């Protein structure tokens, strides 16, 4: 069994809208190893959610994957049939979303929903499914699993609902969990609980997690490796520590500088000027060039190649192409 669980190569996703084609994802390359938490971070419109959905081939209409290769556990995801994909979704790759209440069916109890998922993918008896359900509920830290199994989703708080979602995801022994902004809608103290739970699951079960978020703090505390996305391009990728301590790309720097920190009181935050482009036009050069304070002539003309600047640390910026210095 190789260490590599997921490999995404040169992924391109387009959306056809009334105004033209939106290039949501442009040549994204990343890989996720077994037992690691990989963070996909960026602002609205950077393509992180769509990238996560593409692993399950759930890119919503009018989007479509127009190029690239996605490999999961040795299998080529894009060449599988719909039936084969169904066997993977929920069973080997699971996903949890930002609003747990919207993902849970309000007319079935929590226990019933987990049991349904178990029996969908595994041929087991009702009793075995019930047993597994209670085990899962306990694993995710819910008190009194038999009682919880009987409750309906709306009777639970947001944090508990999200734990139920995680239990659902674990119920079929998935090896990859895609978590799309799982804690954005939760209070800070509950968020801390859920993130701790995810870290525990990674360590105890060897679960791989693709954590999609816009919150750099969450990334710093929970992820092993990170990819920073901007308008569908990976601008920087590497181990969390390297990204935060030795960030190279001007966008990553700008993003971190714009976050209010203790001690920043009173001073204006160094905001990145301008705004995120719409993704409608094909950009010949670097997508960040219009807002970059280090922009050079070459940045407008050709796309920056991914350059290795340290162990497992890659940047897509002309400043680091051999010869360029910072």
């Amino acid at each position, binding site marked *: 069994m190789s260490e590599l669980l997921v490999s995404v190569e040169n992924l391109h996703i387009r959306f056809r809208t009334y105004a033209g084609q939106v290039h949501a994802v442009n040549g994204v390359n990343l890989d996720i190893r077994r037992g690691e938490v990989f963070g996909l971070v960026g602002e609205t419109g950077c393509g992180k959610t769509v990238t996560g959905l593409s692993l399950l081939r759930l890119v919503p209409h009018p989007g479509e994957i127009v190029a690239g290769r996605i490999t999961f556990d040795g299998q080529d995801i894009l060449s599988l049939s719909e039936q084969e994909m169904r066997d993977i979704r929920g069973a080997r790759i699971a996903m949890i979303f930002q609003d747990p209440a919207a993902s849970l069916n309000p007319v079935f109890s929590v226990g019933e929903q987990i049991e349904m998922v178990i029996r969908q993918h595994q041929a087991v008896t009702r009793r075995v499914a019930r047993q597994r359900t209670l085990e899962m509920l306990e694993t995710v830290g819910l008190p009194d699993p038999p009682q919880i199994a009987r409750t309906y989703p709306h009777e639970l*708080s947001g944090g508990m609902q999200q734990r139920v979602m995680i239990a659902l995801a674990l119920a079929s022994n998935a090896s990859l969990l895609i978590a799309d902004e799982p804690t954005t809608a939760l*209070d800070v*103290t509950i968020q801390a609980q859920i993130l701790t739970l995810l870290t525990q699951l990674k360590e105890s079960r060897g679960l791989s997690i693709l954590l999609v978020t816009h919150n750099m703090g*969450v990334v710093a505390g929970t992820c092993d490796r990170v990819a920073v996305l901007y308008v569908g391009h990976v601008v920087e990728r590497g181990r969390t520590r390297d990204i935060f301590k030795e960030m190279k790309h001007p966008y990553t720097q700008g993003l971190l500088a714009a976050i209010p920190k*203790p001690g920043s009181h009173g001073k204006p935050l160094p905001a990145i000027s301008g705004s995120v482009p719409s993704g409608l036009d094909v950009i010949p050069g670097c997508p960040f060039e219009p807002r970059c304070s280090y922009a050079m002539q070459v940045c407008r003309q050709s796309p920056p190649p991914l350059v290795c600047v340290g162990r497992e640390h890659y940047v897509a910026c002309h400043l680091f192409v051999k010869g360029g210095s910072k």
Partner: protein
Amino acid sequence: MISQSGSGNLLLEVRGLTKYFTQRRGLFSLRAQPVRAVDGVSLKVQRRETLGVVGESGCGKTTLGRCILRLIEPTSGEVLFEGINILTLGSTEMRRHWRNMQMVFQNPFSSLNPRLNVLRLVSEPLRTHTDLRADALSARVVELLERVGLKREHLFRYPHEFSGGQCQRIAVARALALNPKLLILDEPTSAVDVSVQAQILNLLQELQREFNLTYLFISHNLSVVQHISERIAVMYLGKVVELSKSETIFGGALHPYTEALLSSTPIPDPDVKKERIILEGGVPSPINPPPGCRFHPRCPRVMPLCSKAEPVLIDVGNGHLVACHRYEGPA
């Protein structure tokens, strides 16, 4: 300390404000269980300062903001604006009084009527309270738009054509139209990205300096609140549990809840290995708050006294207020 209307540095004072929402349990229930959204809050806001109000969902901070603005009627207490208790004003006076204080809401799209264009949205307060019309009116609107970073070209566009950050700017322009003294900002940057948030926070700081505004900044995000506020009030289940200067909250918070909040806030620095104080359980509902100190079931430093008596806000020095039995000195 008696404040006289118009004089002194004290712009806003809230005394013992409570807001209970009554839920009717069935048609014939005699015992209506009230939701104690705000349960006895007192605070003071000086002119030109920014007071941050921070807390999680259910703590009552949003309701507090609305009560202060009198968008909903408080159950009891006083709201003194420049010495005058606005809760006693009649509806016509209250409508005129709203020129002095305005609110910027959380969801930028939802706070703008989707059927009105920017001109009509921003000019509404001017139409209601002044005689400005036609060219003078649009001139003033353009002036406001340019001040928040938008342009004349945007006058006839509709909210759905703008991004979240731009919508928030429109909302700010509208709030400033009548030159208010107090601006209550209810989670103004929660719905936007980090880089847009930075732009809006910078804008708010500039506007504050230029127009001598006083801000009440409500948010659940401690980092944002400490950045923009001089003083911070921490709320839990309808009560203020700690109130102090920003630096003190971050450097030396006393209340166990504030500590937990601080340690749970994700910091973008992987080296900061916080022992996260993970609180057990979820936030209890404001319908049946725990007896005694409301935080005691989840408090890592709970004492037997905590479940019996409610702590009051006391000054432990330098204007640092805490409501916790651990800091009550002898007697």
